Structure formats: C-alpha cells, structure tokens
C-alpha cells in the first residue's frame, strides 16, 4: 500500500467518512475511493452494495477479481440522560468498542463522579449535539424521561439518520411522544424508527439488565441489516 493511500485512508477514517480500497491481489495495483466519489466510479454498484453491508470481500468485476476493503466509521453511542441506566449502558457499550457520549444539562446528574470514564456534556442537546456530528454510524438513546431534553435530541437523531434510535418510556409515554413529535413535523415512517419501549424483550428489571437489553437491540440493528431493511419496507 502506498503511503499516500494509507495517509488518505487514515485521514478519512479520522473524519468519520466511509472509504473503500480496491486491490488487485495478483498485481498489487491499488486505489482508494472516497464515499463522495463512489457515485461516479465505474464500480459504483458493487461499491455501494459493499458499503451498505459494511463488509470487505473479493468481487469479480469488469476489471477482474479484486479485493474491496470497506472502511465504515466505528460505531458511536450518544445518550441523553446521565441516569442510572446510562451508568450501566456506557461501560457495556465501551466494551463493545463504541465511542460513548452522554448529554444531560442537569449538572447533578452529569457529574464526573457518576461517570468516571465517559465523556459527559452538561449542556442542552441543541448546544451539545451539533458539534458531535452525529451520523448513520451512531446509535442514539433517549433516557431522561424529560421531553424538554429527549424530544430535541430525538429530532436531531432522526434528521441525522442514526442507525439506531431508542427512547425510554412506557407505551403511554411513547404515545404522548408521538403526538408531540408529529406536531413538530415528524412523519409516521420516521416516528416508527424510534425503538420504544426500548430494548429487547428479555424481562429486564434492574438498570443494568435494561442496559443489556438496550445494547442487545443496538447490536441487532447494526448487524442484522437484511431484517432491518425488511422491517423498514414492511412499515
């Protein structure tokens, strides 16, 4: 790999942009395609398919058999609410390789003592979220139970196409949320993207168990792409 390609690859990854490297493993010939250049590339169908799957692999193309190295940004988790569940969810997500950020304007909750190894931003979502560059490789979880904090964050997560969006609260709470978000212009399709009641149904009771059920649902959304697509089509 030419140092120049490696340098661009690392720079694009650092900026959280997807990249594909195309290698002819017989000759060693290699080129890099940035996410924004895929549409104009001769192999765009293959590249787009691979990028969607987030999977590297060998492909037979018009230009011969090549190896495609697909680099998608590592997943992140953004949580509103520095609450008890978040205290369990953050370290579980970190163990799974997620970069975790918690947003909560209530300084009594958002204290470093409660979250020794997590980035906690004690600001309102409208201030805290835009600089985070939340993207489709980000999972978003709303945990405050307070519409003043969760609603704007959910709107942001929907607008940024997060791969997972979940909101804590009962069916009744979620029904009220539906009314509020619809009034704010959210479509039925978009509202249906919010996982609520949050988490896999494993009978979780304690905050740590609920964190496990949320994390399980996040992993499912990230990894089981065909079923997610099927669900979206059915919706």
């Amino acid at each position: 790999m030419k140092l120049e390609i490696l340098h661009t690859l690392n720079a694009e990854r650092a900026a959280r942009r997807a990249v594909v490297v195309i290698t002819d493993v017989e000759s060693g010939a290699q080129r890099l395609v940035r996410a924004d250049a895929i549409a104009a590339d001769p192999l765009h169908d293959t590249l787009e398919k691979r990028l969607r799957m987030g999977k590297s692999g060998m492909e037979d193309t018009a230009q011969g058999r090549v190896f495609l190295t697909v680099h998608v940004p590592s997943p992140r988790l953004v949580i509103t609410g520095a609450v008890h569940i978040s205290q369990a969810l953050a370290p579980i997500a970190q163990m799974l390789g997620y970069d975790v950020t918690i947003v909560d304007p209530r300084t009594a909750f958002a204290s470093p003592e409660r979250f020794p190894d997590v980035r906690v931003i004690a600001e309102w979502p409208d201030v805290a979220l835009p600089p985070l560059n939340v993207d489709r490789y980000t999972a978003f979880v709303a945990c405050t139970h307070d519409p003043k904090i969760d609603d704007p964050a959910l709107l942001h997560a929907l607008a940024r196409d997060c791969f997972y969006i979940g909101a804590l609260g009962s069916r009744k709470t979620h029904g009220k949320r539906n009314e509020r978000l619809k009034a704010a212009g959210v479509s039925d399709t978009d509202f249906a993207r919010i996982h609520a009641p949050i988490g896999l149904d494993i009978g979780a009771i304690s905050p740590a168990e609920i964190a496990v059920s949320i994390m399980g649902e996040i992993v499912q959304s990230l990894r089981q792409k065909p079923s997610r697509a099927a669900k979206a089509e059915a919706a």
Partner: protein
Amino acid sequence: MLGRDEDILKAAEEWSKAGRGVALATVVETWGSAPRPVGSNLVIDSDGNFLGSVSGGCVEGAVVTEAIDVIDSGKPKVLEFGVADETAWQVGLSCGGTIRVYVEKVG
C-alpha cells in the same frame, strides 16, 4: 494495547513515516470456521514487531516471517492457511477453516 482497526492502520502509517520497513497483512477470504473476519489487519515491521491479528494467534508467526520477505522484495503475496496444510500442527488453523491473507509492503 488491544489494537482496534484504527490503531492498526495508524500504526502502519506512523511506523512507515518513522523509516521502518512495514508490511500490512489483510484477511481477504475465509472458508468454514475462521477466527477473524475478512478485512482484519495485521501490521508488521522488518524487526518482526506486529499489531493486530489475522487469526486467533494460530498463523501470525508464519505471516510475520512472510511479511519480512515482502518488505525486502516489495512484491505482494497471497498466503493460504488451513488444516489441509502438511504443517497444520505448526501453523494451521485449529478451528478447521481456511483463510487467505494478502501481504503487501507499505510505502
């Protein structure tokens, strides 16, 4: 250091910029039960230092040896490992799968 994918590729760039001979090994194909998915990386320098993995530790030794050749020659290689290998007990995959690893020089 656990060696996340970012760290491995960053190390490859930093090692190369520091003037070390560097090779990058990538799992390009797997059959059957394979310990690391396609796309997994191992970065190697000419002294045999390495970061990352292409298997569960089963074949890294052999990949490092081949990588040092690749650094010298500059020519990429495709290596294949599986239990069918005569030397399976030395460098094969105990899990029963087969993997192909592409080794290329960096720089």
